[in-house]
């Protein structure tokens, strides 16, 4: 089966932001939300050693996607080809997936109050086209393909040292890789580390306190009634005594 992934060639990328606008255009992403992003950092460093980098990001379609685990209805799921998608019929807009995503790749679309995010342009890919961001890139800096295919360009880039944005605390198997030959990627990792997946308070209350309590309560009443019924069977029902 396929394993779709993308490589960002940081050598080529000039942070022109075309990919952001193409994505917004194709999927009616309302301003100010976004499905993909280019966060420009100022040139920093100690003269004369200065670096100017930008964090080009999108949904990582992680191998061990925390958003998939967080979705209460199963609206967000990982396809067999690796793409993580949102089934709009099932999404209730609770945003638990947003809190779970280490990369901030999701947003709530105000037009339907449901979660939206990059889906690797899977409708285009199925027709043999490239994702919109890849197709528009004027530096040819985005490479998309099947990581399971040794002949693919993404495979070769990864084999040649393309890195993922992971940290010691968070490594959920992202499938966006960054090719960096100028020691610039550590700056990105330091400035935009993946965040530990969060669970919001109401869900924490439910999972840690309330659900166990209810298990006990329901189990308790069930057992209680069972006991009472047993007693009743034992006692029998006399018409006269009643």
């Amino acid at each position, binding site marked *: 089966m396929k394993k779709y992934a993308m490589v960002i060639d940081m050598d080529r990328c000039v942070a022109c932001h075309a990919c952001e606008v193409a994505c917004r255009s194709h999927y009616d992403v309302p301003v100010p939300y976004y499905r993909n992003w280019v966060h420009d950092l100022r040139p920093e460093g100690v003269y004369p050693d200065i670096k100017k980098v930008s964090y080009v990001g999108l949904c990582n379609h992680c191998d061990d996607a925390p958003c998939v685990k967080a979705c209460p209805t199963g609206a967000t799921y990982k396809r067999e080809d690796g793409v993580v998608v949102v089934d709009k019929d099932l999404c209730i807009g609770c945003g638990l997936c947003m809190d779970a995503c280490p990369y901030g790749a999701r947003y709530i679309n105000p037009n339907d109050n449901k979660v939206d995010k990059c889906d690797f342009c899977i409708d285009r890919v199925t027709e043999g086209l490239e994702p*919109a961001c890849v197709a528009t890139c004027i530096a040819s800096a985005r490479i998309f393909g099947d990581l399971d295919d040794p002949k693919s360009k993404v495979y070769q880039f990864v*084999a040649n040292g393309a890195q993922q944005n992971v940290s010691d605390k968070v490594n959920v198997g992202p499938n966006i890789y960054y090719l960096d030959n100028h020691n610039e990627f550590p700056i990105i990792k330091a400035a935009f580390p993946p965040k530990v997946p969060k669970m919001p308070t109401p869900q924490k209350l439910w999972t840690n306190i309330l659900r166990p309590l209810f298990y006990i309560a329901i189990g308790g009443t069930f057992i209680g009634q069972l006991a009472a019924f047993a007693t009743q069977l034992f006692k029998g029902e006399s018409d006269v005594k009643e």
Partner: protein
Amino acid sequence: MANKISRRSFLKIGGTVGTGAAVGLSASPSKVKAAVKRNPQNIERIPSVCEQCFWRCGIIATVEDGVLKYIEGNPLNPNNRGRICARGNAGVALLYETDRLKNPMIRDGERGSGKWKEVSWEQALDYTAEKLLAVTKKYGVEANALFSHASSGEHFNNLYNYLGSPNQAAPSFAQCRGSQEVGFELTFGENIGSPERVDLANAKVITLIGSHLGENVHTGQLLDFTEGIAKGAQVITVDPRYSTAASKSKWWLPIKPGTDTALLLAWTNEIIKQKGYDEKFVRDNTVGFSELTDHVKDFTPEWAEKITEIPANIIRETAKAMIDAKPAVVIHPGRHVAWYGNDVQRERAISILVAILGTWGQKGGYFLKSAFPYSYNALNIPDAPVPKRQRVDGAGYKYPFGSVEEGLTQELVKATISQKPYPIKSWLTVAQNVFNSIPNQADTKKAIDNLDFFGVVEVRPTEPTWYADVVLPEDIYLERYDSLFTVTGWHKPYVALRQPVVKRVYNTRPGWWIAKELGNRLGLSAFYPYNDFEDVLKYQLKGSGISYTKLQKDGVVTFPGKQYLNPGESYAFNTPDKKVHLYSKELKDLSFDPIPKYEPVNDPPKGYFRLLYGRMPVHTQGDTESNPWLNTLISEPHLWINETIARSMGLENGQEVNLENQDGMKTDKLKIMTTPGMRPDAVFFPHGFGGNDKGLLNFSRARVSDNILITKYNVDPISGSTGLRVNFVRLIKDGKILSPTVEVSFTGVNAKKNSGIRQEEQNRTFNIQPKKKASAIREGC
């Protein structure tokens, strides 16, 4: 009471439950406004040409049920090869932008009062023609001036030619590329075109003098540039600022502003000294080499170091790189070169290097202009009249090499104020924001006050529209036809068609129609023997060998091009003696330096910084500031300033300051961006924001245009184009003038980068962990 359920209560209960059931069954959670899933009946993919900047990439517009949904690059177009930039993609947002001009308007109060009455096109055109005829009658036809630009401008240039007025100017020459064209024409007998014919994809060394390719997004050129980088090209970026290009460079030379010519002369000196030039080319194709050698003999790297603050050994090192790589060396001519008013000479210096390194017509150097195999049918119209009076802007006489096609905008402004040699009494501007493109806004405003008539053809309510007597709103490029785009100076020559991709959204009209309608009212109907511009295009192509239907379907027709000279082949340069002029007799005859000299520029006074400006990748000058899709990426300019200097003034990144220039002009507050990647004696102001464009309602209108601060300018005596980088600014915070308390030296080693592909990592002193060796996760799977 009966035990049975009465009929009434059955209905009551049944009704209740039944209603509940009906509502339940019909309720659907996804009935709310659909966000993404679209099911259009009719999908069209229509090719056209973008006009979000002047690169004019080929695009394909996807239109669903008559609504433009997205724009992609046309893969057949050799310029952009299927890709487009942020602004091109954002054309969709422009089409439906609510701040667009929607209807013709005539002012209903004082000029600048903002009181308008909406009128019909008939009324607006009648009014305009009436006013133009009135000025013609009272002051002569040449008293009508035209400020034009872009594809729309061309229709009006024709109109004014037919009218007989020579007073037409576009900022593209005098505020942009003019000196580059002249410099190269003087050397090679031809200009290097727009797009510039630089073979970046195959170059081994790319030298950028002030060009910030990467933030300046010309799609086709950027495709080539990144290709070159990926193939291992070494880049030398000469820029006071650490631009995106600098971040891709092996050498960043943070040159002292205004001293580039010294560097170029030192390179010339070094290359000649090391005999690193192409001896055969120099011998066979150039004149003036011995004069050149003699001229540069004292311009050593040590001499240049004192001037440019670039170490001599770096100058030698970079010269050597160029020597070793020749002829696959591109020394980019720059595009906006209107810097100091001595720019023709700087461009001459660049062209001399280009020549002696033998890069003309060579792979990885400058490629050749190709012949276009066909000619178009000319329209059957009379010849345009010869103007009776000379043009007032000095192009061609006062400024001998000033372009008579593009004119000199600032000179036209000055002439309108001075009324010499004769009064200019009407202005029509077409796709040109005269307040934001021409320096010294006060002059422009004064000039407008002198006019009997000021008309504007525009798409958005930019600041000049507020002072207009009549506003004629134009279709945007997605809604109209324009002339064919014939490009011969690119990898392959091609012709591209711009055609409407959607029905127009507002009550606007295309430029060709406005010009024609005005022409008819000005008695020029003989020049407009057509009703539909498409007929013109078809007529032009008839018998040419290019099929209009193919053009409609594909958007572009390409032809084989000859980019490089064959080995041993000689090129017949278009100069009188067919040679490359290292020494320019033409200039000598006009009492200009025949070989460039370094002319110093004034340093900023204490406490001031030189005002530098430039591009952002998501905006096109002032055209796109209010485009919602682009505005959400960058909505305001951030002033680049040296971090150490800023800190010494008590400033932190992101704080707001006012800028005041040497003439006391002030901007509103803008944020600063502190970085070590900026020379301490200059600040960099991204160009393109307001303005104070009163008609833009969905966008902030702070007065934060760099053009406000460009009140002083030099004029290049050779080309007539302006030098805009001669203004100095200081920072004011909360009413207090700030002054730096330290000095920062920028001499010394500059950033060295490891260019090339997949190479071993180098450990640096910068506190970054060394990259781990690539792990063999995937090998052998």
